[in-house]
């Protein structure tokens, strides 16, 4: 089976449209970030959460009113599993108080519907800020590492464009999280540690497709005149199009499986990685390589690529 066999799309010609498209998406995400902000999960917000699961179906408003009457203040929402609710409230070092308050209230008023507290999480405010910082540090460090590595393997222009593409991918997903956060019931899209893991996964993977395209460009560009660059870039991208798409598809396939089967705890992560890889595939063709092309064109100096073999 062969898909995208011997294509000849003129990617470079359409790059300006792609730039505009990317900027619009990025800008709308950033505006949403500024206006609406992010829906922080317990890791970064701090607080206590209990996950309650009932034996029989029960309405979210019923449970909410029971807890309200009992004077347990906090917010209750449906959790992405059957008959499960997530109750979140302020941080308290002793989760036992919270557990027994909730349990007593529910036992008193919903006697015939047995419940179980299946998970308790409490994150203190100082831990939350700790987690935030290590997330930022990890992200920055990995971007720097990728910049250095790709810079070492190719050239600084290539590496910079690659990292710009990674930023593009991560910021797009971040913007999407801000736009959609809290809107979809089975997928609240809260920012927590797992989303940071998703960002790092996207960062590490986004460059994969880019490197494949770069590799081909490097192989073909050596000794060519700058006037031929447009043709070489286009041909390289078309020649690698099939593998760019197939490699992404296998990963998308397994992430889709995670999204469907791995349950609500992983859903936000899977969503982020899925979108991130889609965007990453797009950006390696429409952002990273065209940026390098434009940069080479404007700087007018011939490229000195490392490691390109003539064979």
């Amino acid at each position, binding site marked *: *089976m*062969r898909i995208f066999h011997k294509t000849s799309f003129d990617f470079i010609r359409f790059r300006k449209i792609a730039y505009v498209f990317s900027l619009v998406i990025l800008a709308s995400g950033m505006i949403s970030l500024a206006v609406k902000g992010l829906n922080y999960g317990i890791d970064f917000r701090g607080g206590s959460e209990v*996950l309650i*699961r009932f034996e029989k179906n029960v309405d979210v408003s019923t449970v909410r009113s029971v807890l309200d009457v009992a004077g347990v203040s906090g917010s209750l929402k449906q959790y992405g599993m059957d008959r499960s609710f997530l109750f979140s409230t302020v941080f308290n*070092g002793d*989760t*036992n108080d919270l557990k027994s308050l909730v349990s007593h209230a529910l036992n008193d008023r919903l006697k015939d519907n047995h419940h*179980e507290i*299946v*998970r*308790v*999480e*409490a*994150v*203190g*405010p*100082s*831990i939350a800020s700790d*987690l935030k910082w290590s*997330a930022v540090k*990890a992200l920055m460090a*990995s971007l720097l*590492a*990728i910049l250095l*590595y790709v810079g070492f*393997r190719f050239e600084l222009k290539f590496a910079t464009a690659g990292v710009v593409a990674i930023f593009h991918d991560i910021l797009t997903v971040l913007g999407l999280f801000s736009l959609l956060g809290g809107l979809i019931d089975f997928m609240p899209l809260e920012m927590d*540690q*797992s989303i*940071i*893991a998703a960002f*790092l*996964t996207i*960062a*590490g*993977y986004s460059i*994969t497709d880019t*490197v*494949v395209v770069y*590799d081909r460009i490097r192989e073909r560009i050596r000794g060519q005149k700058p006037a031929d660059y447009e043709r070489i870039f286009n041909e390289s991208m078309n*020649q*690698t199009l099939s*593998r760019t798409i*197939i*490699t992404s*598809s*296998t*990963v*998308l*396939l*397994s992430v889709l*499986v*995670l999204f469907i*089967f*791995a*349950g609500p*705890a*992983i859903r936000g*992560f*899977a969503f982020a*990685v899925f979108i991130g890889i889609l965007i990453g595939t797009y950006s390696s063709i429409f952002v990273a390589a065209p940026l390098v092309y434009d940069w080479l064109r404007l700087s007018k100096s011939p490229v000195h690529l490392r490691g390109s073999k003539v064979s």
Partner: protein
Amino acid sequence: MKNKRFNLLLIAVVTLVAAWSLWPTWRDYSLSKQLSSFKSAPDSLRYTLSNRDEIENARKKSLKLGLDLKGGMHLVMEVDQVDLFDQKAGNKDAKFTAIMNTVRAKASKSDAKVLDILIGEFKNENIRLSRYFYDIRNSDQEIVKKLEKESEDALNRAKEIIRNRIDQYGVAEPVITTQGSRKLIIELPGVSDENRVRNLLKGTAKLEFRLLRDPEILVRTLDRLNTYLVQNSVAPKSAPVADALPSPSVSSQLKAPVPAPAATGQASAKPLYDVIGVFQNGTAYTTEHSKDYVVSLLHRADIQALLPMDTELLLAAKPEIGKNGEKLFPVYLVKKTPELTGGVITEAKATFGSQGVQPEVLMAMNSEGTSKWARITGANIGKRIAIVLDGAVYSAPVVQSKIPSGNSVINGIESLEEAKDLEIVLKAGALPAPVRIMEERSVGPSLGADYIRAGVLSLGWAFLAVSVFMLLYYKKAGIAADIALVLNIVIVLSVLAGFNASLSLPGIAGIVLTIGMAVDANVLIYERIREELDGGKVLKSAIEVGYDRAFSSILDSHVTTLCAAFLLFTYGIGPIQGFALTLMIGTAASLFTSIVVTKEIFSFLLERNLMTQKSFG
């Protein structure tokens, strides 16, 4: 040819090592399946006894499941360094207390080092550290170094003590690690009684024997406090008192306390006696309702300043039951300086008391403690000595005679379970400073079972989807990629089992992601081979060139993924580390499986003429 033999040998060794590492996991699984198949208890018991070594061995070496899959508790505790530094200081005055309060407030908001905050505050106030810490002749630098050492020691000691407590309580495979300068991370798989464990861990277990002041002094002190509260009947008093003591019936429950008649209308005139009652014999009580308010009252600096020199008002740990069945907490006036502290305790034992119903804890002291205890008891016959644990009075027996044996006893304990826990904390020793729970995550076993089901389903479907895709798209070559994929998953699991790392739900997610990424290397190679074939190369050289040319892209993409996963592992905490770990192992392993293994398969097939141009789809 030589190189090829080496590759085959390498593949064989890796496969064997992986199988060997996963063998106990398989045994453990089949043994427990066998066990659960027995219908009667005696049968399974007999089977367990006769195969005990094998069962234990398999269990010890099998792949561990993470807290989220097995159920259990993950705790992050913080050693209170402000308290620690406070303990180390001398010549404390109001200024010092003020500084420490600022430090405490700042430390609770940021994750900066407490010592840095402390130094900063002292600089702001332009006070040398030596005014309070260690020797006056020490320079600030020397003191900072000493305090740094002190806090490091405290963290390590706290870790040891908490490990002792957990070991004695009995949790299988606890993991306790330190993080940074003041945090302990504690992982307790399979804990069912979370509340008990929490209480066991968070108590400082600071045991003190303190002399009780005479009842007359207590009565006089309370009078003085009451007068003070009347004079200063400003804001703090009104609301909480009314709240804490909702009805006059509570004060009447106190059976007509001596200085405070059960007054109904005069609540505001006797603010203290609304919440504390005094009996004829000079003992004071508070009710369960007012307890919290009394505690907050006793913590106020202005109230503490009114107490006689070197004394403190403490509440009892457990209530006494009044005549009407109400719960009354005795209030004690004790000397601030303890006569003896828990450091001398060498042995503790939970038993039932003389009547055989009341649980109590017997304690034995070392020789130094024994002689001190003998002297103290000898000098205070007829007086009462309070046994104080973490600031709460457990009992305050009257000294009947000199105790030369170094024995003492804690009573006033509700249940044998609590007595057992006391025994544990006393034996393990006191923490150098109080610890607080900063983060807690616990997962019940039923949710864990759900997670396992979800994880296995995801693994199965992801493998099926990706391997079928490879077969469809690349035909025969897809088979090689799929074999490599199976080996990859086996390697990830065996590395986890071999290094005693545990598999969590995020870890499974990492494997699922690895399934999608591992075949990428094959895709890159196969696409290149197809290209070379299209270019007119013969199969054998197309394969050679394909592997050769694709290698650079594969290496680059794997290194970047490894970089990101490694940094995630370094900065990540708990569950995220599990994800990063499996992703790292999987990515690294796929360099081997997707390149070396598939290449060997192809050369095997080529030699037997089992491949054609069509084999790459």
